[in-house]
């Protein structure tokens, strides 16, 4: 009994006050991919490289739309690797919980 108390006091508190105090991911962490509309050329390389197929390109109404769904994203970083323009970057953001699937879509568009 005394041992348990001693060990517990020695170890101290191991948890943090998350989410009041944000927990910042280390450098190199592969989190939420961000699309950068100013760099993107809408070439579609990321759409074919994506293993779960959650990036897609659509054309219509005189514009091109690149959409990414975080629903099925596996954060592998292949889109970032294949992008010749550096228009997709995996960020350190990981808080992605949402009530609807639509909230988990992100898209960029450009007039053709």
């Amino acid at each position, binding site marked *: 009994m005394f041992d348990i108390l001693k*060990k517990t006091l020695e170890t101290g508190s191991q948890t943090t006050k998350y989410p009041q105090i944000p927990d910042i*991911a280390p450098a190199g*962490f592969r989190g939420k991919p961000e699309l950068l509309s100013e760099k993107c050329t809408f070439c579609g390389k990321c759409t074919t490289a994506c293993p*779960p197929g959650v990036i897609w390109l659509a054309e219509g109404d005189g514009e091109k739309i690149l959409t990414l769904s975080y629903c099925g994203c*596996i954060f592998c970083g292949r889109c970032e690797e294949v992008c010749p323009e550096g228009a997709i970057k995996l960020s350190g953001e990981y808080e992605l919980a949402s009530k609807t699937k639509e909230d988990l879509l992100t898209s960029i568009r450009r007039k053709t």
Partner: protein
Amino acid sequence: MNREFIAALKKEFGNNILDEITSLNETYLTVKKEANVKICDHIYHHLDIPLVSIFATDERKKDGCFKIHYVFSLDKGDAFVIIKINVDEKSPRYNSITHKIATANWYEREIQDMFGLVPVGHPDPRRLVNFEDWPDGVYPLRKDFDIKTKPPRVEGEYVYRRVEGEGVYEIPVGPVHAGVIEPGHFRFSVAGEPIINLEIRHFYTHKGVEKLFENISLDKAVFLAERVSGDNSVAHAVAFCQAVERIAGVDIPGRAKYIRVVLLELERVYNHLGDIAGIATDVAFAMGAAHANRLKEEILQLNEKITGSRLLRGMNTIGGVPRDIGDKKDEILLTLSEIQRDFRELMEYLMSIPSLMDRIETTGRIYNDTAKGLHVVGPVARASGINRDTRRDHPYAAYPETNFKVSVQKGGDVYARTLVRADEVCESIGLIEQALWSLPDGEININIGEIPDGYALGYTEAPRGETLYWVMIENNSIVRCKVRDPSFCNWLAIEYAVLDNIVPDFPIINKSLSLSYSGNDM
């Protein structure tokens, strides 16, 4: 060993062997369909060679036949012997070997569900993977089954074995469990507290992984392999990559081999720490569980720092590893030395608590002959006196250049399994240190390009045990990928481990076997 072995087999069964192909350490012997029982029985019982997998392929386009492969592992000579039989499309039946070799039980039932090949004389021909609402005559792994097919649901019934008698009660548990765990059905028959029979039913999370492999490109398949069994990601990815690299006949750079060892062992450490924490939880020793979980979390955070993923994902590719971890060497070594010190203290402490020892000693015993008969693998097998470890018996990556000892216990109980895992944690930390100290310079991956047509095995020792991939490639795409997760071998052992134990001990027995639902169901 391999050559002598094949020569001896040929002498014994010369007229039954139709064809022989050797590539790397694998020898494929095509034998007459009627001779499968005789030959497999001879290899298994007479020569004492374990049967590690059975799988089928649909090669009807080539010669109108399905093929069934029986994979035997020659542990002493680092070789595999694969006995093949041809099963004609017109009479899709072959002789079951289950009555001679119990290990074959689930494999033959799986082949029956997936390919519609009937094992004649199987003692339990019920469905295994497909449920009763799946229509007859629809076989998902046949080549003419399109992946987008949605078969209609039909009425059907699954009959459980029943134990009857005065005072015998049935306790059905699952498939929905308390807590965030995966689905599986357990049907206990009890007389008072002791369990007199347990029947398990799984495959609720069957996702058609093997079919998916056949429909995605090679570069994406690595990511699928990583997700077959979530906490054994590295072991699966490495096994898959090694199979493809063996087909391509390339040797990956030395640095990549050492990095793979570091990753594989980090995975083993965090899995074993989690299992030890689980055992402490299940005997209601919260303080021990908290400490083991703290250590596991430290490893997960270390993983995140060095690879960007807590579960070490995205760290393998065909031809090597995509990211280097060599620059984080000091950080890894420092964290591991602290963890090792704390872990030793924790284990000494856990083993000195009488109320914990009382719960785990003699509980959930798997006897050596049962373990051998079911071909149990991994730490569970080693705790039942089976001295097998893929890292030593079929060395891969940088394991041939490292020193480690394989921990074997004879008890077969929860205590023995805990001891094996504790030893393995320390050995793994030692392996990571060795690998990092002798990390060679150079490239971390090579570009393989087009993969020639062919097939090969890939194997690793996952934290749960021997993991096997058999990959067949044609025109640079996957034609067949058979995945044999360790849990597929170990699940049936639980039916034996719980016998004569009381129902409240089931959770710790289950935890001590550390079984994966997802890897098993696929």
